[in-house]
């Protein structure tokens, strides 16, 4: 059983999650005992195709995501982020290596019972209403109907789609679809959330709302694994980040450590470009 | 299939149908007979393929006559023919398969799901073939076989000789040189309506037209025998006997003809 030190009254909260840093730093959390990571990736390899046309998408990734943290997953286009996400969700099987989600292989359907996934883009069924979509996904996840009847209206309030839950989605804009996408990821009250470009297509107000929601989820003990090209957002909300480049982890750790200790206070963007060899 | 695509397809289909038939009417208005231009648009749309569709409709009528089981009846001269209707010999091409192993379960299922009996429609049930004969003639107004078969079944099997005559007369407008339609009209006037004068007119016309058309001796017998019987019924032995003699020359072994000639000339 993990015990977390309570937040001291005189603790200064600074950008980059200073409060969180003190909590995760063993020197500042005398009662902290390390829990098993919610996601464990060891020596993950994946290759597309075979023979001369094969492409090594992942070349030995090692990663652990702790429970209750927000992990930002960065990388240039074609780095292997989507492949990694698909393997975490059990959509692809690893060629080599080991992936454990909540102690089980993600290829087992049961391991995804408390996982929520928000894809980068999804043109949800145009002939359904958002409410029907969430009920459908809730049924697939095995959530009780009585629970869904309470949870789904809350989710629509959360994503600011309260008055539109009964409208067919064929009339929805990209931003509205994105909100629906986020809502469906939460329908089974997941412990582990995988978000692919969660703020893509959202207006500034909605983006801020999304960031606040993710922080709120973290406070409730949820784990968030998200991929984004918006480095400022990543810097703001992530506890740790991982930079993927050409199928390998180029850097991984808390943002302030990567930027402050190792890179003399430079911006995340410059650090990112440096890690992927473009600087 | 999106409903919009289906709607667009239907709109285009009917537009082409209307345009094609308007062009067709424009051509026909100059040259063709009145009734050809009056053929329903849907049937004119098929163009030259009408002949094939029309013949398929006749085959369907034949199938219906045999309870839905495919069956081909061959006249000695080739092709279906009104004149050869009385013949009993035919080839059964469907309904019998080569023997298959009793352990071949799929073959056994196929054998038992298919209908393979052989029946002929009787009595009032014959009316079921009329739609196909009607369609056949509507699709191709020059399909003489469809027209004459329709006339035959209407007059003889369905007891509607007046309707048969009206229909055959309409068919004659599109096929004025058809000896078959003239012969069928003559037969109906003779056998069903008792109008011997009209029968003579049509059968004589049929005889004249037949000389210029390819035909076999059985078809010639069909026309000559009805004409001869009609003259006989009118009491005109002078015209009947030469016809019987012609028949006797065609079928020298038919003793009934010789007896008939002897009776009429004695």
């Amino acid at each position, binding site marked *: 059983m993990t015990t977390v030190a309570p937040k001291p009254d005189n603790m200064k909260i600074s950008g980059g999650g200073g409060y969180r840093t003190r909590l995760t730093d063993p020197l500042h959390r005398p009662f902290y005992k390390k829990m098993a990571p919610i996601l464990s990736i060891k020596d993950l390899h994946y290759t597309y195709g075979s023979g001369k046309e094969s492409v090594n998408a992942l070349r030995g990734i090692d990663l652990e995501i702790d429970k209750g943290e927000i992990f930002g997953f960065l990388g240039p286009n074609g780095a292997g982020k989507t492949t990694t996400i*698909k393997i975490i*969700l*059990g*959509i*692809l099987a690893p060629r080599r290596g080991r992936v454990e989600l909540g102690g089980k292989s993600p290829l087992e*359907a049961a*391991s*995804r019972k408390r996982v*929520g*996934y928000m*894809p980068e*883009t*999804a*043109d*949800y*069924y145009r*002939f*359904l209403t958002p409410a*029907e979509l969430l*009920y*459908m*996904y809730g*049924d*697939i*996840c*095995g959530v009780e109907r009585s629970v869904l009847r309470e949870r789904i209206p809350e989710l629509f309030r959360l994503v600011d789609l309260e008055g539109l839950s009964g409208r*067919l989605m064929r009339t929805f804009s990209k931003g509205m679809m994105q909100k629906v*996408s986020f809502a*469906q990821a939460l329908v*089974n009250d997941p412990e582990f959330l*995988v978000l692919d470009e969660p703020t893509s297509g959202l207006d500034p107000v909605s983006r801020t709302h999304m960031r606040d929601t993710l922080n709120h989820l973290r406070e409730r003990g949820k784990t968030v694994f998200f991929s984004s090209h918006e480095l400022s957002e990543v810097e703001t909300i992530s506890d740790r980040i991982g930079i993927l480049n050409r199928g390998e982890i180029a850097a991984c750790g808390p943002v302030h450590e990567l930027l402050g200790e190792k890179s003399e206070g430079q911006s995340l963007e410059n650090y990112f470009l440096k890690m992927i060899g473009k600087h | *299939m999106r*409903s919009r695509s*289906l709607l667009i397809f239907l709109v285009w289909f009917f537009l082409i149908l209307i345009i094609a038939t308007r062009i067709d009417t424009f051509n026909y208005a100059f040259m063709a007979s009145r009734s050809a231009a009056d053929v329903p648009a849907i049937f004119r749309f098929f163009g030259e393929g009408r002949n094939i569709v029309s013949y398929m409709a006749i085959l369907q009528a034949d199938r*219906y006559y045999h*309870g*839905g089981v495919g069956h081909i009846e061959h006249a000695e001269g080739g092709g279906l023919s009104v004149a050869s209707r009385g013949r009993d010999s035919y080839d059964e091409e469907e309904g019998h*398969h*080569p*023997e*298959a192993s009793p352990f071949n*379960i799929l*073959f*056994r*299922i*196929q054998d*038992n*799901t*298919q*209908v393979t009996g052989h029946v002929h429609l009787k009595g*009032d049930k014959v*009316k*079921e073939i*009329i*739609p*196909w004969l009607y369609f056949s003639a509507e699709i191709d107004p020059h399909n003489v076989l469809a027209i004459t078969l329709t006339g035959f079944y*209407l007059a003889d099997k*369905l007891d*509607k000789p007046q*309707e048969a005559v009206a229909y055959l007369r309409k068919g004659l407008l599109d096929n004025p040189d058809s000896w078959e339609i003239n012969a069928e009209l003559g037969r109906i006037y003779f056998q069903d309506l008792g109008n011997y004068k009209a029968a003579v007119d049509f059968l004589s016309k049929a005889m004249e037209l037949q000389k210029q058309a390819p035909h076999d001796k059985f078809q010639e017998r069909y026309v000559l025998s009805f004409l001869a019987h009609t003259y006989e019924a009118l009491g005109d032995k002078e015209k009947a006997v030469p016809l019987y003699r012609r028949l006797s020359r065609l079928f020298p072994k038919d003793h009934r003809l010789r007896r008939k000639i002897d009776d009429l000339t004695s």
Partner: protein
Amino acid sequence: MRAVLAIIKGMIKDLVRRKDFYVLLVFLLVLMAVMASQNFFQIKGVTRYMRDLGYSIVMLLSFIIAVTFTAKQIPAEIEARTIYPLLAKPLTRYSFIAGKYLGGVVVSLMSFTVFYLVYGLFFVTGGEAWSAPLLAQGFFFGVLFLFMVCAMVIFLSNFMTFSANVTISFLIYIIVSGFSDTLRDSILRAKGVLSVIEGVIFYIMPHFDFFDMRVRLAHSWDPLPAWVVAAVAVYTLVYCLFLLYFSQAVFSRRKL
């Protein structure tokens, strides 16, 4: 099971909210009404051509619904990228295939039932004597037919796009319905390797001709014996299970 039912419900809503089904239903009603109103020389009670054509149209329209709805399921999910959030849920690929297949079956059965009711109405009011067991067998064979069509289409959708799937499915239907007899005779007359090849083709091809009750219904032949009905049902079950097994085997290995 609940996951499969959820997928099926979604597909039913698709059928109900699109216009395709209603267009086809109106088309059927108009055609049947036109046929029923035809007057051939004032002869009353000419019904067989209506029963014949009506049944063919009902089967064709149900086939269209079955093929077009089922063929688009997997390709549309992949194209719209909705397959990823779906498979990220605790849903096995087998359940996904089962849900899409059964959804296609339910959707096409719903359509077929309505079409068959319309057909049945014209059938019993046509004037000629009718047989309830024969009508029931016609319905049952139509149901089996649609089970088989959906299984075939789901299997093919693993390998081809929506339009290719629809085209191939129609071709298979036309070829099997038209040439099954010819192939059988050819097998029985052929010798050697050709006989074996043709025999294999005969067993592999979906025998849609088994479900054709058109002649029996239109021409009032006797209903089929119970053992034949059972044999066809077993054949359908076995064939569908084979196709579904291979479908899920292929889909499980598919990189999405």
